[in-house]
């Protein structure tokens, strides 16, 4: 079922917005390139609100001592312990067995719409 969450222009240009969708805490993410993502707003570790964390570019390392900051892959870092979650897949970058639920999100008629 689709739920209108807020007006699209209420979203920060490059940041997050906490919302409630059908009684569930969801964090809406808009990246600098304009992509939208919606994730459950609870860290699976100890339940912190991911919307209180930071939106950052993911970093990869092809070999020891080499850092490559992604142009496209963004992560939400939990405000409590720094766990990183891919905003597109919800997957924890360190632990493939841990992930945050994601939801389809679009803009329809100027409104941010989350499907749940």
């Amino acid at each position, binding site marked *: 079922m689709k739920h209108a969450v807020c007006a699209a222009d209420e979203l920060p240009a490059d940041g997050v917005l906490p919302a409630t969708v059908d009684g569930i805490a969801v964090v809406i993410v808009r990246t600098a390139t304009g992509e939208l993502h919606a994730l459950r707003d609870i860290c699976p570790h100890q339940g912190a609100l991911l919307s209180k964390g930071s939106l950052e570019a993911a970093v990869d390392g092809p070999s020891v001592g080499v850092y490559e900051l992604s142009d496209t892959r963004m992560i939400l870092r939990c405000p409590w312990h720094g766990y990183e979650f891919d905003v597109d897949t919800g997957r924890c970058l*360190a632990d493939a067995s841990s992930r945050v639920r994601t939801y389809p999100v679009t803009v329809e008629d100027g409104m941010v719409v989350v499907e749940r």
Partner: protein
Amino acid sequence: MATDLDQRPFDIGALDPRTAVIDVDVHEQFQSLNDLLPYLDDHWKRYIVDYGWRGVPKESPYGVPSTGGNTRLDWKPEGGVVRASTLELMRSQLFDGEGVSLAILNGMFHISSMTGWYEFATAVASAYNDWQIEYWLEPEPRLRGSVHVVAHDPSAAAREIDRVGGHPQIVQVFLPTVTDREYGDPFYRPIFEAAVRNDLVVTLHHGNETKTTLGYPRYFVEWHNAIPHANMCQLTSIIFNGVFDALPELKLVILETGGSWLPHYMWRADQQYRGLRLEVPWVKRMPSEHVRSSVRVATQPFDEMSRKHFEMLIDQMGSDELLMVSTDYPHFDADSPLRNLPGGLPDELLEKIRFRNALATFPKLR
């Protein structure tokens, strides 16, 4: 009894897994440094014969509080013979006395703890390796051995690994657990690469050079109790500097630290990695996954625990393939390989710990 095994081909595959014991921590010793002279160039011989070099200086302040010193009392030879210095002693005390089928030699020769003069140290390491092969390995087919290297000159260490690593009875590279440098540093990577290309594991073992985070504490018991922590630090360095990611075929064996620390170690390292991964993005797997696929530990000295707690420990490790039995022959606190674990364990588990896990760990035992 065992001497008639000289020259007889030894077939590991013919061992009965129900009773076979592979002891992964055995220490051979020379009578004196003079044993190495035939394997040294004349220039380096002078330092021992004429200039009085007496071996790697011992820095730690301790003596083992036992009338056997660091030797198990029932293995202390008579008549001034140096412990663990002859095949006859090892055959009667270890193979016959303890029911060991195959033993891996680790020496008592921590040349990597030398902090300089690497050309000389490298020559002595090569001499030791040649002596080990000629004096121990070739006369006794039930023995396997180590490449001793000067770790702080990694390119020379790699050359030595390539030089003797192809011997059919050499199965590992030996590194003492130094505590002033970290083996995960890319500086040391040539050693691990050389081990892998020669189908050798890398083995860590503490020695006099190993310090605790408090340095050398006031008493031996304090120092001995803290040994696992030093190995944990080196393991952490190796994991977070991406050694296992770069060399997934590598096996790291940690000796003489028991195994009960592993669950704690894996839980904590995983938790740290989940939160701090971005600092070490070249690490692609959880530390516990690296441990389960690449790290094995020897049992001795094994913490005393009930069968219930031992089975809980295996469950917490998430694998029954991490432990390998060891005696630490001939040291003062050596374990019996057949009596060191709680009674009543399943035969399948005992076969793994005493035999199958070592076979799976050392490529050259297969």
